[in-house]
């Protein structure tokens, strides 16, 4: 009753909320995203802030932890929009927490940009209409999964594929679903694991004698790294193909450099391509300076999320939350670290996808996948 449909307006500063998984099971990824967000805001403020009409306004972050739980994500969303009066929110990182936040965001007419919620339906309402205030900076699963399937068929010429899915989140299962939909070869085996699992020897041993041409393993680097390591140690040399959740330098560290061979993953954020992308290379070096390591994909996506909001404000010439949502919906050819992004009708981020190949832990080759 107190919430207006006019949305929130900025005060002296532009308040951007962060509804993020900073504790709980997704804390590792949430933390990387927080780093990207903070890096972006620091840079924006160093340059004087965001141009709103005629004045420049600084950005103020309000960071809140949603504990990787749905009801806290909803509560954090409510607090950000009602009490903190933010004009836009970045996060949550996961689809579940993200969807839990949507009703409260919508009620307050404040847009939210998730750096990494990948479920195809995340941005959609029940009937299929678009969620007016929900956006994302990453691919949705269908796109990434089908790209992987194409790559496996065309480039790797794999006729027999085994799937190893992270079964504890929508990320792994969604990608698997998408992969299965477009892969036409033979699925030899489809097994699952849980977030936090460390021992994959049993599954890998059972795959060993099945004449597999490739393994599709969508998931995060912490588990896939171990899968790569244990597969190679078990003597499985088949290519391992994954998704952007493993696009992280830690993958090779965990797997061991000598094991990280014939590893491929779909990614918007090619470290190799970054060299030719000035936005990305600047971000890379800034991240390296601040945190002393190679920038992970999640940080890059979160960084882009902030800049997408900035761009929307500048385009609209207003930092009113409803206007920002309009601006985000109309975003075209936005140059981000993860590529050139256009927001489509369903509020998905359209951008090119690349596939990177690791050899001895280093990115040695980048493939383009044409759609």
């Amino acid at each position, binding site marked *: 009753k107190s919430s207006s449909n006019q949305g929130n307006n900025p005060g002296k500063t532009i308040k951007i909320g962060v509804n993020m998984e*900073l*504790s709980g*099971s997704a*804390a*590792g990824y*949430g*933390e*990387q995203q927080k780093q990207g967000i903070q890096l972006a805001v620091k840079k924006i403020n160093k340059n004087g802030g965001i141009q709103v009409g005629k004045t420049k306004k600084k950005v103020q972050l309000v960071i809140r932890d949603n504990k990787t739980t749905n009801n806290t994500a909803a509560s954090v969303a409510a607090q950000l929009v009602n009490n903190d009066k933010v004009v836009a929110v970045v996060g949550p990182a996961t689809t579940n927490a993200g969807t839990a936040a949507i009703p409260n965001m919508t009620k307050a007419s404040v847009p939210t940009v998730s750096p990494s919620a990948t479920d195809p339906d995340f941005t959609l309402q029940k009937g299929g209409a678009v969620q007016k205030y929900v956006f994302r900076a990453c691919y949705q699963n269908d796109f990434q999964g089908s790209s992987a399937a194409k790559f496996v068929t065309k480039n790797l010429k794999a006729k027999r594929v085994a799937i190893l899915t992270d*079964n504890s989140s929508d990320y792994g299962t969604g990608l698997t679903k998408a992969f299965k939909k477009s892969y036409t070869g033979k699925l030899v*085996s489809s*097994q*699952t*694991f*849980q977030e*936090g*699992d*460390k*021992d994959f*020897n*049993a*599954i890998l*041993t*059972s795959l*060993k*004698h099945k004449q597999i041409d490739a393994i599709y393993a969508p998931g995060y*680097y*912490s588990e896939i*790294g*171990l899968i790569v*390591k244990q597969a190679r*140690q*078990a*003597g499985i040399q088949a290519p391992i193909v994954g998704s952007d959740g493993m696009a992280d330098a*830690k993958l090779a*560290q*965990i797997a*061991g450099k000598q094991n990280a061979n014939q590893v491929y993953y779909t990614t918007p954020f090619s470290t190799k391509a970054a060299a030719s992308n000035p936005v990305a290379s600047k971000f890379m070096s800034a991240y390296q300076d601040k945190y002393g390591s190679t920038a992970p994909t999640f940080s890059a996506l979160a960084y882009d999320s902030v800049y997408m909001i900035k761009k929307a404000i500048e385009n609209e010439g207003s930092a009113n939350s409803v206007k920002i949502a309009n601006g985000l919906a109309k975003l075209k050819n936005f140059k981000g670290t993860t590529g050139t992004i256009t927001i489509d009708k369903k509020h998905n981020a359209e951008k090119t996808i690349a596939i990177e190949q690791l050899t001895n832990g280093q990115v040695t080759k980048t493939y383009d996948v044409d759609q």
Partner: protein
Amino acid sequence: MQTFGQQLVNGLSLGSIYALLALGYTMVYGIIKLINFAHGDIYMLGAFWGYYSLRAFHFNFLMALCSAMVVCAVLGVVIEYFAYRPLRHSPRITALITAIGVSFLLENGMSALVGANARSFPQALPVVTYHWLGIRVSNIQLLILITACLLMALLELIIKRTKMGKAMRAVSVDPEAAQLVGINLNHTISFTFALGSAMAGAAGVLIGLYYNSIDPLMGMTPGIKAFVAAVIGGIGSVPGASLGGFIIGILETGVQAVGLSAYKDAVVYFVLIVILLVMPAGIFGHNRREKV
């Protein structure tokens, strides 16, 4: 057959890890009937100690292992002193909640301190893989298995043969009477925590080395599994904890080997329930039915 042998090796290595953790659980539970929820997190701290001692202090592997055991032992004693000792005469469920609190504190404290991210563990021992009848066994797998068995034997020896061990048994059955024969309750309980936590520290370093990946939440799931292992084996019993660990390890491996990986944990819990229904105090537990 080869696959079977390989899976057996997989199961045994996984089982020895659970066993190593279950030992600490079973000891602490045996003596003060506390499900020490923080045990898995002490194991995590052991792994992190190993990580830093190898990287920053350039310890060799053995030194890292031993120092982690010492550090974790001290930590276990400190936790007992501050968090559990004040509650010794309170309902057990209160101490359980405190243990959960300690567990949260260690997990989130470490996340805040070093970041929630997974990191790779320094490879302090070069991996050597032995082939035998087509079965691959790595030196680290052997190391873990042997360490688990050695520590188990050592523990059994301490409990059955030494004076402290007898004191532990006495305290566990009747703390008041134990004091009346001159046993210092606090020392005995501290000793138990030290011993149990040292096991967890050793497990932390070994597992860090084996899987090469550690993070602040790594203790949560294995902690619960290890407790389940201890219960299956008959909580309070050292051989039981080891047996329980191996049962779970082999069970998980078996379930995944036949392609039911999605139901791996469900099967473990199902077997747990079935075992408890047949043997309500676990395999080696004595079910002392209350005598009226």
